[in-house]
């Protein structure tokens, strides 16, 4: 029952807010939203308590859904999922709370609140759905919520276009996941995740070999699209168009959905597919960190830093380091939410504190949380030198760009400063970002999976690298580096990938659509018209012949009938 509440509360809140619409003022919409999400968080806490008291699994069958085996409305939680559930619901509730005080345009406030609730509910559904199709449903709803948040300001055409772009990329990932589900269903005759795991004998690679690779790779593609990893990351820099609370939710919680799915499905995925996910994550972490370094705007820098950090989570999830992945996810969610929420605030001391602690939490400088999660990741990668090298390279890069966060200019036309009420949750988030690392590392908070032993060398190396990066960043931030401007601008544009896609894929699709619409469609119609005209002409000919050969038409009919009878008898 509590399990149902976790998902049902946000979704019900979304429905209520949507139905009440404008009758709900901006503040009351925010209050209803915060209340609903807080209830969901409460339910998540209750679940966490039950697990802390010794429960090992919890599932809630709600009812049948689709006429396919396993495709029922059923929720399930296992110990490794609990911390994710708590984190994501807590972060969403705090963001919603901050949104009450945050300045926003009055018009469409309830639409916005509804979208926030929808996003949260869908995300939590992804976390605890027990069958693949329900998980897919959560993903798709999440895409809708993302669209509504990004395209919220309807009078700005570019925002709407960005929303469509985000949804189309999300759909690419969803389609990959759907085909993977279809294939898994065809193999295992069920869509229930646990059942698939049991039927595959716990070793998906053994019975089917490479045949099991294709669906696993498709799942990875879906996760890439949803978690903004190379090459499907181009939608994430655009989410900064959403109002600050929306942007915060998208960058801290929603973007983790791909990681969540990888973590949840890892037992039924082919090891090679997971390895490729880790490799892509490493590439993304490095490339996005470099792009972040080249940004001139705080919002854009934060967006690219999100991509980079999620890349590290991919490395962890892909190498089976569930502990490190969950740890990174928690740290990043709190830090990024705090940073994004006060990314727009001016000069207040609280905001400065939040920005400073968020920045510290991003980098692996002890005692901020980032240090512990990065060290856990490095410790679990000791037998994978390439990935370890990438992670160790990403740590100082993170320090370099994070050092620029406090001093960067805010975007032009940014929102006015937040009200005091909106700052309370931000402080909470900042405190979490600072302290959660120590709590987890000392064992005060359990993540449901065994923690790797962090050797002193690994810890020291991480700390030293991060510190070096941060100091170098602080020292260099005001100085031009003397790099060619063309390079910097190239990096700032995300290595031009967005433009490349626009010129290649999007243009190709539009061209194909134009050809089909103007060419084939007209061709088909014309062909039909030709046939029609031919029939008319033949009819006219027959009619003309009728006069001369009186019974010609009867003969034709008779011949046809005889032919048919012959066909049936002779055959």
């Amino acid at each position, binding site marked *: 029952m509590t399990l149902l509440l976790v998902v049902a509360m946000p979704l019900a809140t979304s429905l209520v807010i*949507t139905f009440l*619409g*404008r009758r709900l003022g901006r503040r009351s919409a925010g209050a209803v939203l915060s209340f609903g999400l807080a209830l969901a968080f409460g339910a998540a806490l209750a679940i966490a308590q039950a697990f802390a008291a010794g429960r090992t699994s919890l599932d809630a069958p709600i*009812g*049948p*859904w*689709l*006429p*396919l085996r396993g495709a029922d409305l059923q929720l399930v939680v296992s110990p490794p999922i609990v911390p994710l559930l708590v984190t994501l619901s807590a972060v969403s509730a705090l963001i919603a709370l901050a949104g009450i005080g945050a300045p926003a345009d009055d018009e*469409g406030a309830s*639409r916005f609140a509804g979208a926030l609730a929808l996003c949260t509910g869908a995300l939590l559904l992804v976390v605890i759905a027990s069958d693949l*199709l329900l998980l*897919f*449903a959560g993903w*798709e*709803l999440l895409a*809708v919520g993302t*669209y509504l948040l990004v*395209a919220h300001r*309807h*009078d700005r*055409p570019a*925002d*709407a*276009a960005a*929303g*469509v772009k985000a*949804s*189309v990329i999300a*759909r*690419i990932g*969803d*389609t990959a996941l*759907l*085909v993977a589900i*279809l*294939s898994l*269903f*065809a193999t295992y005759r069920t869509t229930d995740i646990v059942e698939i795991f049991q039927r595959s004998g716990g070793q998906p690679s053994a019975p089917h070999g490479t045949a099991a690779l294709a669906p696993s790779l498709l799942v990875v593609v879906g996760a890439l699209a949803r978690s903004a990893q190379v090459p499907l990351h181009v939608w994430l820099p655009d989410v900064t168009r959403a109002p600050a609370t929306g942007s915060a939710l998208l960058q801290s919680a929603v973007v983790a959905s791909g990681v969540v799915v990888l973590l949840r499905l890892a037992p039924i995925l082919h090891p090679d597919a997971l390895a490729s996910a880790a490799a892509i994550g490493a590439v993304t972490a490095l490339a996005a960190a470099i792009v972040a370094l080249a940004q001139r705007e705080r919002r854009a820098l934060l967006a690219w830093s999100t991509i980079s950090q999620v890349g590290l989570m991919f490395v962890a999830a892909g190498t089976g380091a569930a502990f490190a992945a969950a740890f990174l996810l928690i740290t990043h969610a709190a830090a990024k939410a705090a940073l994004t929420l006060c990314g727009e605030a001016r000069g207040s001391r609280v905001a400065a504190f939040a920005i400073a602690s968020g920045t510290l939490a991003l980098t692996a400088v002890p005692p901020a949380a980032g240090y512990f999660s990065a060290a856990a990741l490095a410790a679990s990668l000791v037998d994978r030198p390439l990935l370890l090298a990438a992670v160790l390279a990403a740590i100082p890069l993170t320090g370099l760009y994070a050092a620029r966060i406090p001093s960067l200019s805010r975007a032009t036309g940014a929102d006015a400063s937040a009200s005091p009420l909106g700052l309370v949750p931000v402080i909470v988030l900042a405190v979490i970002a600072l302290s959660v690392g120590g709590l987890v590392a000392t064992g005060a908070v359990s993540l449901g999976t065994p923690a790797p032993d962090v050797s002193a060398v690994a810890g020291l190396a991480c700390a030293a690298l991060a510190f070096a990066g941060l100091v170098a960043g602080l020292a260099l931030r005001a100085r031009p580096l003397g790099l060619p401007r063309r390079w910097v601008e190239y990096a700032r544009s995300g290595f031009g990938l967005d433009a490349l896609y626009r010129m290649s894929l999007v243009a190709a*699709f*539009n061209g*194909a*659509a*134009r050809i*089909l*619409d*103007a060419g*084939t*469609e007209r061709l*088909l*119609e014309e*062909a*039909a*018209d030709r046939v*029609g005209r031919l029939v008319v002409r033949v009819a006219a000919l027959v009619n003309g012949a009728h006069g001369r050969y009186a019974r010609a038409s009867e003969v034709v009919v008779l011949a046809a009938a005889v032919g*048919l*009878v012959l*066909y*049936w008898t002779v*055959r």
Partner: protein
Amino acid sequence: MPTAIVIVPLAAAVACALPYVSRAARPIGVIAGLAVTVLAALSLALNGTVDMRTTWATDLGAGYAVDLDALSATFLMLVGLVFAIGAAASARVASRREYFALWDLLLASLAGLFVARDLLLFVICWDACLIPLVVVIWQWGSGRERRSAATRLLVYELGGSALLLVAILSLAVARGTLDFDGLAARRVPPSGQLLPALLALGAFAVRLGLFPLHGWLPRAYAAAPVPVAMALCGGLAASAAYGIVRVDLTLFPQGMSAAAPVLVALAAVGVLYGAVVATRQDDLRRLIAFANLSQLNLVALALFAATATSLRGAVLASISNGLVIATALLLAAMLARRTSSFALSRAGGLVASTPILAALFGATTLAMIGLPGTSAFAGDVVALAGSYERFPAATATAALGLIAAAAYGLGAMRRAFQGPPLATGMDLRRRERALVAPLLTLIVLLGIAPGLLSDRIPDDALPALEVGR
């Protein structure tokens, strides 16, 4: 009951044509549609199929045989509902008397088609649909293209049903009966099934809009009055899907199985084709028509794959598609009333002045592109899951249509409702909301609990092919 379900709309048609009663033509049309839905639902609930048989044209082995089983009743519930709402939406038509008489006639012939258990009766009803349909498009349609659209529809459909007629005549000659049960009991030998299967499919594929036989479809949707376009997707397309199940797959299973690889490939191409072309449309009705085309080809794909799961999915998807496209067309008409045009380029920024229309249109668009929680997803995913067992490559190709669907669906929403406000208008009136509400409720209800419908259809009602596994 099966006879009553035909008599009621027929009586309504007659009543509409009478001089004094015709003032109430619209309520009569609504009632006739509702009556069909209620009767079908009753027979589904009572689970009693009262069939009736009398011989008629004994030389051909044809007779009057009707029956209302689960499959027919399920489809008829949809048809009745769409017709009731379509009649209610036909608020301002010229020459109401004739319009509603033809409208009820169309409903009656569709009802006859769904209850017929005799091939000749089936074909008579099948072709009888065309007369009111073509006349209505010809006379009440919009735009300069309506005449040519009506002609094309007629020629395409008659071409298809000519092929069906040939198949039926040859069956009558070979088997001496046209009764469905009699024919199903004594099927044509497997080696000879391919030709009659394809001949019969000629009619069904044209009406369903199987790629590349869909030439009539976009024009007809764009030219027909909106209620009639609703009837096209909610009635005619459903009847084609029903025909494939009832005639082709039941009577010629091996023939269909032999042709399946080619047909499935065509359908998969059609799914993609419709979705891609829909992204280029400016006329909202044409956009919906191509979205519909894409969905119908998905239905066709699942029908041709003919596994137990895919057929169930096809029935669900077909019914859901009728509901969703009808809702979309209804909302398109309401949008057009505010912008005086169906062109998306004339709309824009409407979310500011008409938030409720925007919300309902958004919800319908999401249903159109198969969002989970709507009936479209339930139908699509079951259909795809069933088809994937036999034809993984084609099904995966068809699934790519989902990506293009996101592009056209959200693209349409963006163009109509976002951006600088080009048009303003009153938000939806209560009467308009009341028209859309039942459809949308049903879409969501069937999306969350498709079992309401799916559990009513027993496995043996679906002529699934035995797939060796």
